[in-house]
Structure formats: C-alpha cells, structure tokens
C-alpha cells in the first residue's frame, strides 16, 4: 500500500459512510396513476401524496399522471423494461397476470410481513381481494374500485304506475317492468327506453360478467389460464340482452358506455346499469327523483367489480421498497380511503373506512352510495387471464356479433371459447 492510497483510503471510507448514512432512510418515489373519473381526482391524488411527503420529510414522492388505465400500464411496462420502473403505480386489478408474466411486480404479501401489515391486508373486503391474489400471494392492494348498480328514475316509475321504491330483482321482472317504462310518441317512436345496459367494448364485457355471475357462473378463475365463455350461464346472459331488445325494453343494437349517464339524465332511459363512479355526477345533474338498486339478476343478484389497485415494482432499492410500502399503507388508511371515495365515487374497499365519521355523514347525505356496498357479497372478479387484452377481445367480439350482427349466441360463444383456449393453452 503506497502513501497516497493510505491517506486516500480513510477519506473514501468516511465519505462512503457519510453517504450511506444519509441514504439509509431516504427514497425518492415515483408513483404513476391513471384518471378514470372527472378531473378533481388529480387534485385529490396530489393532496394525498403531499400529505404523505409532509409526514415523511426524509422521502419524496412524485405523483405522475399517466393517462387512462391502458396508457398507464403501457407507460409503467415501458419504463420497467428500460430498467427504470416507477416504485408504485395504480393499475387495473385485472392486469395482475400481465404484470406477473412480464415479471415486473413484487408480491406485497412477501414484503408486508409484520403482524400490523397482515392485519392491514386482511382489512379489505374479500370481494376486492379475490383479484389481487395469484398462487397464494397477494400482489396488489385495492384502491379505486367500482361496481355497477341499477340507477332508476323514480318519477318515470311513478308515471308508469310502478312502485318507486321497488326495483326489478330478476331478469323477468326487468323485462316486465321495462315494457311499462318504455314510452312511445304518437308516431310510434320510442322517447324513453325501459333500461340501458352498455354492451359495446370492454365496458360491455365488464357488465356481461355481472350477468354471468347472476346465473351462478364466472367468466374466469384465479388461475389466469381459464376463460369460461361457452357456458350455459354465458349463453343465457347473451340471450337476455337480445330479449331486452326484442321486447322493446332496450334500444336495439350497440349501446355505448360513455353516453349512458347522459341518456339517463336526459330522460331517454328510465333506468341504466352503470358504475358507482357516476353517483356524484348524477347527483349533481339529475333534475328528477332517482334511486339506486341491485342489478337485476338471472338466478340471484350478481355484479362485476372493476377498477385499479396499488402495485409495487421490482428492481428498486430496499429503501425505496420500504418507503413504497409505507406510502401504499398511507394511501389506504381508512381516513384516506374515505377522502378518495367521497371525491371520486369509488367504493372505499374496507369496512373501517365506512365506519369513519366522514363516510358515515356521506352515506347519510347520499344513501344511494350504500347500495353498492350491500351488493358487494354478490360481486365477482372482472374477467382476467394471461394475454387479457387478446382474450377479452374475443368475448367483446362475441357479444357485439350477437347484439349488432345477429349472430347466434351459442355459435358466437363457442367460437370465442375456441380462440381463447388456443391462446391460454400454452399457459396451462
């Protein structure tokens, strides 16, 4: 060891020690989030992330708006593949299989191991935890979750001679009441349809999952390798949609998701099947007496759940990982769930959140919000498999083929099943 090195070494070592001391705690987090509801959501996210940063001055967090769900997933995957992943992101719950296949996320149950951590994971409703699990591990934490409910115009019910406090519970009742609710003008043109179920695109497939659930089946399972399209339940569900159009309860042909709340507000539909995420919007804009009920079901109630969860990414430092976990825990405290739920209309995913004074006051002010919660035990996971985008598209094509093209339900579903099996076969 020469003289120069001897003097240099202590210097380097002390510098290294000083450096690691300041690094021990600090982490700079990047948090990607999508926006699916009206713009104030961005402000609320920022308010919550700033509150966490204020409590943890050694850390910093940058909330990065990343477009809609699909764009956020693309962005997160692109960044992860380039070795530059965000530490935390809110992505679709059903993207779990894609994220596992790309090997970019950490199982949260592997890093949240203390008793307090376990109690936290257990605090969420089971209905929202089903799609966070794979192979016995929890991969995500519920955050912005939603489920569709049946919104109805009480004034229209009264005008049709129906009890405004009773919603149709079964498909038969839906058809029967829907016929009374459909109003035509003197020329025979329909001015108000009995109900409106979006049936196009991914939203159509989402609601379709609820119909299938109400017939006692599910479109996918927790293995991620099974699509169950060619079933009696799926066939009955598709036939129900056709029957609504045939019996003039619902407009024939394709029905879009985005314009559904508006059709309700403008009186073109006496009832609609759409997300709880619309509660605030409809509450602000409805000029009539309205209510919310369970979705009418085939054999019993049934609904899909949807929305986004927190994921923590791989290839991050230990400090970042600990900070990310702490951040997710902070964002999902009962108080913060309440703030988020009230700002956006998403369902707070734990019992504790609903017991906070703020949520109590909120549900008194807007009792319709409670209906979704009561419907939760009847809800089933949204369709999710490996290669989700492709496989879901087969289902969408089948539904749209029947609705708009007049294809036979059994044929369309069998074809979708065949294609799905071909894709999923290699994952089994």
């Amino acid at each position, binding site marked *: 060891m020469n003289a120069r090195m001897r003097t240099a070494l202590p210097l380097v070592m002390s510098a290294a020690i000083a450096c690691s001391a300041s690094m021990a705690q600090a982490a700079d987090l990047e948090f990607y989030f999508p926006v699916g509801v009206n713009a104030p959501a961005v402000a609320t996210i920022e308010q919550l992330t700033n509150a966490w940063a204020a409590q943890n001055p050694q850390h910093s967090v940058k909330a990065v708006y990343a477009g*809609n769900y699909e764009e956020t997933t693309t962005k997160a995957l692109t960044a992860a593949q380039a070795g530059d992943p965000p530490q935390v992101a809110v992505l679709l719950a059903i993207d779990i299989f894609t994220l596992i296949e790309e090997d970019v996320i950490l199982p949260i149950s592997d890093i949240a191991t203390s008793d307090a951590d376990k109690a936290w994971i257990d605090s969420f409703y089971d209905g929202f935890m089903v799609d966070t699990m794979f192979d016995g591990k929890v991969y995500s934490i519920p955050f912005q979750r939603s489920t569709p409910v049946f919104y109805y115009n009480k004034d229209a019910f009264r005008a049709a001679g129906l009890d405004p406090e009773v919603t149709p519970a079964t498909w038969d009742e839906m058809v029967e009441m829907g016929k009374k609710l459909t109003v035509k003008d003197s020329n025979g043109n329909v001015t108000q349809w009995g109900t409106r179920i979006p049936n196009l695109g991914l939203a159509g497939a989402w609601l379709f999952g609820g119909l299938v659930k109400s017939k006692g089946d599910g479109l996918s399972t927790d293995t991620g390798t099974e699509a169950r399209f060619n079933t009696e339940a799926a066939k009955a569900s598709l036939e129900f949609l056709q029957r609504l159009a045939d019996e003039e309860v619902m407009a024939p042909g394709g029905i879009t998701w985005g314009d559904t709340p508006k059709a309700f507000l403008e009186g073109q539909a006496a009832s609609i099947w759409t997300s709880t995420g619309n509660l*605030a919007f409809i509450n602000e804009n409805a000029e009539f007496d309205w209510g919310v009920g369970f979705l009418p079901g085939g054999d019993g109630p049934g609904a899909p759940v949807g929305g986004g969860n927190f994921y923590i990414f791989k290839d991050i430092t230990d400090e970042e990982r600990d900070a990310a976990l702490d951040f997710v825990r902070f964002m999902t405290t009962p108080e913060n769930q309440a703030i988020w739920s009230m700002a956006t209309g998403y369902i707070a995913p734990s019992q504790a959140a609903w017991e906070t004074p703020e949520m109590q006051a909120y549900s008194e002010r807007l009792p319709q919000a409670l209906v979704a919660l009561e419907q939760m035990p009847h809800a089933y996971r949204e369709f999710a498999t490996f290669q989700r985008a492709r496989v879901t598209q087969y289902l969408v094509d089948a539904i749209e083929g029947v609705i708009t093209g007049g294809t036979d339900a059994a044929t369309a579903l069998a074809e979708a099943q065949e294609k799905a099996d071909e894709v999923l076969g290699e994952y089994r």
Partner: protein
Amino acid sequence: MSDGLNRIAFATVAFVLAAVWGLPFLYSVWTAFHPEKYSANFVWNAPLTLSNFTEAWQAAPFALYFLNTVILIVTVLVANLILCTLVAYAFVRYRFRWAGFLFSLVMVQLLISPEILIVENYLTLSTIGLTDTIIGIALPYLTSAFGIFLLRQTFLTVPKSLDEAAQMEGAGAWRILWTVYVPLARPVYLAYGLVSISFHWNNFLWPLIVTNSPEVRPVTVGLSVFATVESGIEWSLVNAATLMTTAPLIIAFLIFQRQFVANFMRAGIK
C-alpha cells in the same frame, strides 16, 4: 348554360363538404359555451357561460403545457427543415455509391409506425439520460423520412439548367441550395411545416410515456385528463378544453389562410 349548372353543382358539393367538416366544430363550440345540460339540447335562448373554460383551464397547468408544446414543435420543425433539406439535396445533386440503397432505407422507415418503437426509443433515451426532457420527446422526430422524400421529389423538379447557370456564375453548393432550390420549394416547405406542426401538436402517447413532470409535458397530456371514460363524458368540459388547446392552430390558420391556400394551389398546379 351547362357552365351555370356546373357551378351550382360544385357549390352544392362544396357546401355539403363544408357542413360535414364544420358541424362537429360548431357542436363543440355550442357545448363549450353552454352548461352541460344543453349539450344535446339545442335551445336558442340557452344561457351562455364561460365556466367550462375556467374549469378546464384549472384542471391542469395549461399555460405551462402550451409553452412546452411550442418549444417542442419549434425544435422539431427547425431540425426537420435543416436536416431534411440537406439530406434531400445530397440525394438529388450528388451521385454517390449506394445512393439508391440509402434512399430506399429512408423509405422503409415510412412503413414503420412510431408506436412500435416506443420501448426501444425509451431505452435509448433512458441510457443517455434524456427521459423526462423536451429534447427527449423531440429526439426521435428530429429528422423525418417523409420530409426527405417530399423535398427530394421537389428538388428533382428543379430544372438542371438553373443549377448549371448558377454554377457558371461561380456559385458554390451552399449558395445554389440557398438561392435556387430552397426558394423554388417554398410551397412544399409551407405544406410540410403545417403537417409537422399539427402532428406534433396532437402527439400524445409518446410524450406521455417519456415524461413525468408537468414542466416538460405538452398540451395533449393536459387535455387527456378530461377523457374520463369511467364516469360518463361531460361534453361541455371536454369541448371547452379541446377548443382551448386547438385555438392557436385554428387562429394561425385563419390568419395565414390566404398564404396557405395560395401556396397549396401553386404546389398543386406544378
């Protein structure tokens, strides 16, 4: 007589096309200036409002986004004009080995959609540390196969005799480019500039993916906040935001309309 009929037929077609093009625009103006409940409800005395614009303006830091978009498109346009001109000039004026092959390589690039390259481009930017910068957004677009192609075809139409005359007068390669080729290609430059500006003004996915900070993001990212599919679409807000973000382009077109049209006509006649 048939001349008059022709004129009437042309006018009718023109009006129909104008209406097809103009109606969505008129609809967005209507909804943007009225409360949400009049968005599909056309009543003449519906109350006018500017609140959609104020609400939209506050939903994202639009002033900053506008500045970023302007910096972005100016950077891209200036780089494109310089680089494409030089490349096209070389292809037209010099005979060199592999020229045909190189030009077809440039053409092949036209077949590749930029979306396919997002991951690779991100990787490159992240290696050189340029993610989350405006220059990073611009980098993959600094030169353009379309621009090279367009200018090469235009330069080819320049009569050889003009070039030779300039050479006789003792003009060098730079001077010939600047005094002969560029002035003759002016309409093409204008057309290309228009296409390039509107493309980069509208570009969304790439800037969204490659940036994280509001300080470098363009207007389209701000606009996308309003595309809230989950909770129904509020057309008045969406359209107010859209009008606001496209206004500079529309105003610029109205101001320079005469030049645009004149130049396109001239380019077309050639």
